[in-house]
């Protein structure tokens, strides 16, 4: 694997650099933090400077991964329990529209017709949340559990992977229509597609066995255009997330059950770096290191990929501990990382990267998951 001296620049960082206001000569911290609040079916918008909540956006059941468009004008949230993507206008902080990540079924697994879907013309809806909502149709959570979400084709497309079916679906970002869907073959007992990363002209998909399991999973590389398989390498039984590192031409996988982060390249090679127990989300930092969110150990690990070292710190503000970090996003000025603490009490924590200490606690809803920073629009 080649190391680049280029400062690490994941998608969010690129966006911040490209779109952030130029006042003061450097990137500004001004902008909005968006957090998916899975437990309350909302995405909350929080001012990244004042930490004041600006809007709560009802998007559907179990919103998880968030991805901003390259121009920062749109935020996409994959809504796991409602089989949809919620498209949010980042300027108005309102739900602009929703679109389905798969067709609405007309029959159940046993072959019986879902009459209600016919009666309600369900296929005309753009989210299952229209009907399967509080006080509405049962069950509440429906669909194939879309989970992984990335931008592709220069931001013109969205790619979603579905946990239950292994379907990888490409959607046109402009129209919200499904371009193509490919159902991946399982890899042994790895039958759930749980995470995605886009790296140059390839898509990486993490496959895992149904949990709980100690059986191996796999990372599969797909052609980004045709979704044809290009290669595969073994992984642990429960990959938490994938992080593309374009400057290293590699993809990181967090291995939730084996407490490691592994770096994979297209040759199929991999190497492991130990993290604290239960790594889940990952974030590229400006100094080239990677921040791993250690869900099960209530900690964060700074991973030095070149030195093959990691340093772990407890997630705490003073004497107050926080639990279950899931994801992090870089602030606009790149001096902080905003971390979601996803216990039954929710917190958005500001990590000062220079001092490596938590400096601010912003209350959010319990059972939150994803976070994304969108810089303020230039005036």
């Amino acid at each position, binding site marked *: 694997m080649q190391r680049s001296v280029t400062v690490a620049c994941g998608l969010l960082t690129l966006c911040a650099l490209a779109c952030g206001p130029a006042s003061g000569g450097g990137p500004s911290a001004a902008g909005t933090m968006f957090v998916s*609040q899975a*437990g*309350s*079916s*909302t995405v*909350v918008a929080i001012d990244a400077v004042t930490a004041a*909540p600006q809007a*709560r956006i*009802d998007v559907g*059941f179990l919103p998880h991964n968030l991805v901003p468009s390259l121009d920062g004008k749109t935020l996409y949230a994959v809504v796991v329990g409602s089989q949809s993507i919620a498209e949010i206008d980042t300027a108005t902080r309102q739900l602009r529209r929703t679109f389905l990540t798969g067709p609405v079924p007309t029959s159940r697994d046993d072959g019986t017709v879902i009459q209600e879907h016919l009666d309600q013309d369900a296929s005309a809806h753009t989210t299952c949340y229209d009907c399967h*909502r*509080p*006080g509405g149709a049962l069950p*509440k*959570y429906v669909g194939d*559990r879309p989970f992984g979400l990335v931008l592709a084709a220069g931001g013109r497309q969205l790619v979603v992977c579905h946990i239950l079916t292994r379907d990888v679906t490409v959607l046109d970002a402009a129209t919200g229509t499904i371009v193509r869907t490919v159902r991946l073959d399982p890899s042994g007992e790895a039958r759930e597609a749980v995470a995605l990363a886009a790296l140059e002209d390839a898509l990486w998909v993490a496959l895992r066995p*149904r*949990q*709980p399991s*100690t059986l191996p999973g796999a990372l599969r590389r797909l052609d980004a255009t045709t979704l044809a398989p290009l290669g595969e390498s073994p992984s642990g039984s*429960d990959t938490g997330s994938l992080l593309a590192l374009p400057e290293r031409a590699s993809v990181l996988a967090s291995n939730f*059950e084996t*407490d490691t982060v592994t770096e994979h390249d297209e040759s199929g090679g991999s190497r492991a770096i130990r993290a*604290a*127990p*239960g790594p889940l989300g990952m974030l590229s930092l400006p100094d080239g290191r990677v921040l791993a969110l250690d*869900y*099960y*150990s209530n900690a964060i690990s700074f991973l030095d990929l070149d030195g093959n070292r990691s340093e772990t710190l407890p997630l705490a503000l003073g004497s107050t*501990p926080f*639990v*279950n970090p899931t994801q992090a996003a870089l602030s606009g000025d790149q001096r902080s990382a905003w971390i979601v603490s*996803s*216990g*039954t*009490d*929710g*917190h958005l924590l500001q990590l000062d990267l220079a001092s490596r200490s938590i400096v601010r606690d912003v*209350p*959010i*809803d*319990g*059972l*939150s998951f994803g976070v994304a920073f969108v810089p303020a629009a230039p005036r």
Partner: protein
Amino acid sequence: MTAKPTLLVSVLMLLAACSSSPPNNGNNGNPDAGGNGGSGVVTGIVSDIGTGVRIAGAAVSGGGKNATTDAQGGFSLTGLATGAVELSITKSGYAPGYANATAGSSSDSVYVLLKSEGTPQSYATSGATTLSQSTANGPYAVILQPNSVDTTDSNITVSITPLDPTTEAAALPGTLVAGGVAKSVLLPVTFAEFTLRDSSGTRLNLKSSASAQVELPIPASLRDTYPPNSKIHCYAYDSTTGKWDDFVDGTVQTSSVDGTTPVLAASIRHFSWYGGAPEGNDCVDVYVKVTSAVDGRPLGNARVEATPGTVAYTDADGNAVVRSTLGGGGSKFTAYQTGIDVDGSLTGMAGAKYIEFGEVTEELTGLVTKPCSSDIGSGSGSGSGPGSSSGQPVPVKVGVVKNFLYNAIAVLSASGGTGSVVVILQSGVPGEDGQLENPLPASGAKITVAESGGGTPVLLPEISAGSGYYSTPGTFPITPGKTYVIAIDADGNGSIDGSGSASAVGDLTFTNPTEGATVAGDGLIASWTDSGAGNSGYSVLYFLFISGQNGGFYYVGNDRQATVTNLLTGGGAPLPAGDYTAEVSGWSGGLSLVGGGGLTFGNNITGAGVSGTFYSTGQSTAINFTAQ
């Protein structure tokens, strides 16, 4: 019940005084460690959820203070810094208990229910091991990998303490809500506590890099709601934060222990209380009014717990708003307040801790569902049903719980749309095993029965004064398959002390063979119908007996058919030719099948000082048939 308003006022004054002058150490549950802290006070009582017995000698700690429960299970922690306090309660033979309280200038009350700990099992840490604990719902199991514990001790034990939230939710630690900015209610499905101990009795945990798999049975009444392959969010209780954390998915699958029971399987990293609780997405805000059962006066600063739901404290007018959720059956609202019986007029023992307790089970209908993300009590009105803000708060009457216990056996019988409910109620002082010693008939109780879902409660008169025997008057309409709730005011003081529910077993009729039929003995499948089948939450244990001169067969299980073989010869041999008699009966409530074909009988009436079993039975007409 002899409480007087003036006395209660004086109790409150005493509690206020206690805050600046901590009582002495001793046998009355007073603090045995402390130092100069704040002015906060937490008073509580600790009981056994299975028997209602007050637990003496339990160690209580919280906010840097310690206490030991007195002979009546009472304790006080004083000198606490004001604010939230996480209490930890331990007692040998019980799973650890935890409670959240708020220490303030007036005493906060906690009523802690502990669950008897599961049988300790040896665990050889060098090998992969599956350990399980059988229960009425099926086996609870933990599957451990080799070297999961950092210890050189060779005498490690694992205890699995099962908890069925459909009957024992009150023993769950903390509050099952997703808090933060907005509170979402979590619906408990299945839980257990897992404890690892070394040879000195010290609690251990999995080493940081290790995980284990656990399997928790889905209670019979919830199996339709959570079919195989369902994903259920799981949580572990963190005693340091007093919160349920580690939000991960579990999957409903078949038990690896008995191969039949549907269980929630999940991976865990920390041994503690653990279980599955999906979000209740249909939130309702419920207005509750707490009054004294003696004189009807509103009771301020009483703790109100919704199950499932949140905790709140009543204002000076006895009003509180709690959040609950639809979709989990009836919601239970418990209100209580603890105090110190200054002159002994309440409990017969001056200085003893007492608890005023009451509960109501309410099917939430007519309330307006609101997003769980909204603030509690916010927005315009909450509908028109019981618990709404428009003048119909759920009434909870509380009264002092006596120091002796009540045991109830309640039988629900249904036939042709009518039936009866009979309750035998006894009281007494529990022995060391928790059973009543020389129990006496409990006269003067007020017992009601109602169909779950809004049925009108019907009072069961005592058949004769002093008998402790209560029965529905005349004919009582009972619908087969429906669930009925009994509420027991054991001492007749106006507050409900305990409650339980059971489904009415329907009419059982053979469909094969039928009366007088001649059938092939080889491959015979006996089947029957149950007029109660198809109702939500209906779960019946059937007993089929076939007997004749040449052979015999029995079946015990939840299916309504069984492949008949000759058990007299065994080996799966067919029923030999001859004449036979067949009979099937059904049982709902309390009695359940466990692994290995055994049966267990458990309490499904719980409350403060009241325990017992509420069950329903039904029986087919015996039929005669000939096998050839």
